[in-house]
């Protein structure tokens, strides 16, 4: 398949591959289109009608789950797996990632299924004992509890930032012993499909294969949604993505159908005055900043965009930040192309704003960007550009500020990650920034290097994906029996 031809997204329903009743879809913003089986023909087959059919998952010990995932990871080798190669080709057409960058994300995919990494996710985020059986607790009122984390029938609407989100979605589903219906994102149409087809090839009858469904329909297809998004079909929806798409899903939420929202997130960066202590330090700070901007070509929610620098807004401060801006741009351009490279396409609105900003350097200076390769905008006063919400395509905005009070402006209800330099400043800010909305504070340079084994977006998605069931034993000798007549 060449990168310019249309591609097909089959439908995979719990081990059954459907390649029939094709209908065509146009790509994002009128880009290359693709075909998928008409989802309306198969709508009745999508939900797991009988919840009792999930019982098979509980016959599988956790170590066996790890065995299967380990084999799956090995089978996802980019060089030998045709499904993965096809997913890569489709991603090239459907998403904005340059080829080297996208390829490296597929090359890394097997590592995501590393046995110990998955064990760590399960243990740290839920506790394997709760997944494997009933965990005892005795409460002060005398009752004995046994708690177990059950899976749920869950619909997933993952984001299409490369293939990683699809992989995480499948791993989370398997760990929690859930039944997943995964709606493939139009900008990563085939990764989830490639993973489940590979899984089918190595373990066709395994319960975890039999509880995965992957397909494509157009987001906002209300005919399908109204039929499928009901408590009798699914118990939870895990929705990643933009404001409009997550907001759209909320209209189906009702008692019995819960939304786990991993919604749009912006990120911020805060750099302390220590960055300017020596030339060597300044170069390192610039390189780490460039890394936070450049990884995944700034397409991630954790990517650095507006970068506050505590250098002050006087002449000396502006000189420092302008110099840092030059260095960040230089380092960004120097990063290897498996980390970042010139964007394949560039937001036209942003380009127009940059053009206009360049006409007058009173308030902002722009370093680079003439070739739409990425740019650093350096504010010459203590505010970001008015179009900061458009920053993408490796365009960042350095903002000088006089005091630490001002950096709280960087953090809002939509802020996910805050990259901070140095560590001492992070400790100073960690009790304060969460009040405004920050969800993850990390060392500068690590914004786009998260792990699945930690909370995400200020929630514990894996725990939320589980149903926490309690079985209790109350001995009337220990726990007060309400039925006894107190007046007697």
């Amino acid at each position, binding site marked *: 398949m060449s990168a310019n031809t249309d591609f097909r997204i089959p439908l995979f329903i719990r081990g059954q591959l459907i390649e029939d009743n094709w209908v065509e879809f146009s790509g994002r*913003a009128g880009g290359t289109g693709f075909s998928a089986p008409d989802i309306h023909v198969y709508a009745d087959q999508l939900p797991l009608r009988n919840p009792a059919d999930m019982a098979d998952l509980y016959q599988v010990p956790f170590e066996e789950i790890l065995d299967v995932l380990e084999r799956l990871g090995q089978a996802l080798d980019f060089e030998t797996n045709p499904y993965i190669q096809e997913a890569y080709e489709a991603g090239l057409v459907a998403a904005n990632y340059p080829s080297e960058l996208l390829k490296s994300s597929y090359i890394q995919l097997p590592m995501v299924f590393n046995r110990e990494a998955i064990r760590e996710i399960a243990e740290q985020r839920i506790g394997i004992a709760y997944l494997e059986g009933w965990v005892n607790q005795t409460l002060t009122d005398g009752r004995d509890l046994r708690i177990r984390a059950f899976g749920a029938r869950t619909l997933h609407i993952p984001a299409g930032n490369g293939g990683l989100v699809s992989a995480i979605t499948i791993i989370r589903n398997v760990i929690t012993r859930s039944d997943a219906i995964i709606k493939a994102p139009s900008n990563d149409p085939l990764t989830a499909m490639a993973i489940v087809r590979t899984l089918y090839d190595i373990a066709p009858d395994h319960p975890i294969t039999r509880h995965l469904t992957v397909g494509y329909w157009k987001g906002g297809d209300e005919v399908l949604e109204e039929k499928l998004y009901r408590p009798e079909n699914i118990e939870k929806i895990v929705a990643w993505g933009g404001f409009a798409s997550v907001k759209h899903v909320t209209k189906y939420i009702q008692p019995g159908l819960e939304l786990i929202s991993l919604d749009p997130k912006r990120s911020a960066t805060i750099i302390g005055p220590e960055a300017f202590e020596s030339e060597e330090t300044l170069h390192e700070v610039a390189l780490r900043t460039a890394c936070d901007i450049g990884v995944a070509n700034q397409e991630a929610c954790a990517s650095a965009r507006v970068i506050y620098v505590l250098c002050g807004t006087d002449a000396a401060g502006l000189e420092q930040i302008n110099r840092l801006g030059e260095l960040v741009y230089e380092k960004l351009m120097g990063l290897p192309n498996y980390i970042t490279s010139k964007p394949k396409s560039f937001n036209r*609105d942003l380009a127009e704003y940059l053009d206009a900003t360049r006409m007058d350097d009173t308030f902002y200076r722009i370093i680079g960007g003439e070739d739409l390769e990425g740019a650093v905008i350096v504010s010459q006063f203590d505010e970001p550009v*008015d179009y900061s919400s458009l920053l993408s395509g490796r365009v960042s905005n350095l903002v000088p500020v006089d005091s630490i009070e001002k950096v709280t402006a960087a953090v809002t209800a939509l802020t996910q990650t805050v990259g901070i330099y140095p560590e001492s400043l992070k400790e100073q800010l960690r009790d304060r920034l969460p009040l405004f909305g920050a969800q993850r504070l990390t060392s500068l340079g690590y914004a786009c290097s998260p792990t699945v084994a930690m909370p995400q977006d200020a929630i514990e998605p894996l725990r939320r994906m589980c149903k926490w069931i309690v079985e209790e034993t109350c001995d009337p000798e220990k726990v007060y029996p309400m039925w006894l007549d107190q007046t007697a």
Partner: protein
Amino acid sequence: MTDTIQAKARQMMDDPIALFSKSITQMHMIDQHELESIQRTAMSMRFEEHYDSIEVLHTLADRLGVTQLDEFNDVVPLFFPHTAFKSYPASLLDKKRFDLMTKWLNKQTSYDLSDLDVADCDSVDEWIERLDEQTPLEVITSSGTTGTISLIPKSKHGARYNMQLWKMFLFQTFGQEPTEEQLNPVVDVIWPNHYKGKLGHLRVGQMIKTEFTGGDESRFHALYNDPIDTDLMFLASKLRAAASRGELDRLVIDPKLLARKDEFEAMQARRPAEMAEFFDAITRQLSGKKIFMTSAYPLMYDMARKGLELGFKAGFAPDSAILTGGGTKGFELPDNFMEVIKEFLGVDTIQEGYGMSEISAFHWACEKGHYHVQPWVIPFLLDPETSKPLPREGVVTGRAAFYDLFNESHWGGVISGDEITIDWSTPCECGLKSVHIHHDIMRYSEKQGVEDDRISCSATQQVQNEAIEFMKEFEA
């Protein structure tokens, strides 16, 4: 020959009405080869003038190494994006730094604004009014959803001149030399909109009031008597932007504006009575009279639908002039909306035109529904992504861009957000020789299904209401 071209080019820039002897037919029947050489010469002259007088153009031309313009396409790299008119930090308005705002605007215009007195200037409206009083400018605003407002430094002279052009195009007939009555029409003006404001179309309304009524302002019938307040529109824009960024909790309202909350609420409360009065005026007092009315499609349709629902029909004189245009995005208009408007008004023809705030020219549609480009405007079609010029032959669709030679107060080259089609090689069936744009015009944002960042004039009242509602909640 060269001298003649030079002279004509000068006149095209300064007084195209005189160049074409007040005749719209002459304007659109000029030989296209001759026109192009006049345009090329005028473009080169205008660039030289503006290079010296407009700082942002100077900076851009220097950066690109452009020193002179010879061929049409030479100007394309110098086209301004629409963002040029809002490239100031919006926080300057919040902080009422009208000294810095004036400095910014001074770089956008050919006029010297350095003597403007902004002492104690307390609102955006007041600042613009000071510019009105103390300079040749008549700044127009347009609001967006990005928390800023665009400020376009138009001139009073240009605005007044444009009204002369409007009269010519509204009342003359293509193919016939104008009569005295057509040159100086005196009519009742129906203005289904707010009385005034700094938004482009409301500035036009004020011009129409003085230019079309023979000086009798009682013949100007506005739907709402209250102006649109610029500071309220700025709040509305910030509100939309803050909502989309999840930052509504950070939005602070200027106490001075908040203090006027009761005034704005009273204004909302007056509207139903004003509307009833308006319908009474146009259906009883003006029935059978020759009138001029203009507004955007959705507003005109809204008025017609409401009028018909209330059992009114206007029934104006058949030689009345009705003009409409603008986009229909965001409004559910039925397929027969033009018929509904005609039924209410009692007229057979409704004129249509195409224009944009950033340039002065308005292009009238002929009987075939094609917009004929005014001779002092050079149209361009650009690749929608790269903004490189597309060929000027055959039938071509692309992003519209225009260079307006008549713009004197600000740079006349702008790129639009509109997709248009021009047939460069076939003369229009209507018989006019001028370049003609196909009737179907679409915003690129509409095509891509993304939210447009501008607030159309038809949506003005809706966003204004949002701002007033927010003020009520804010105080509560």
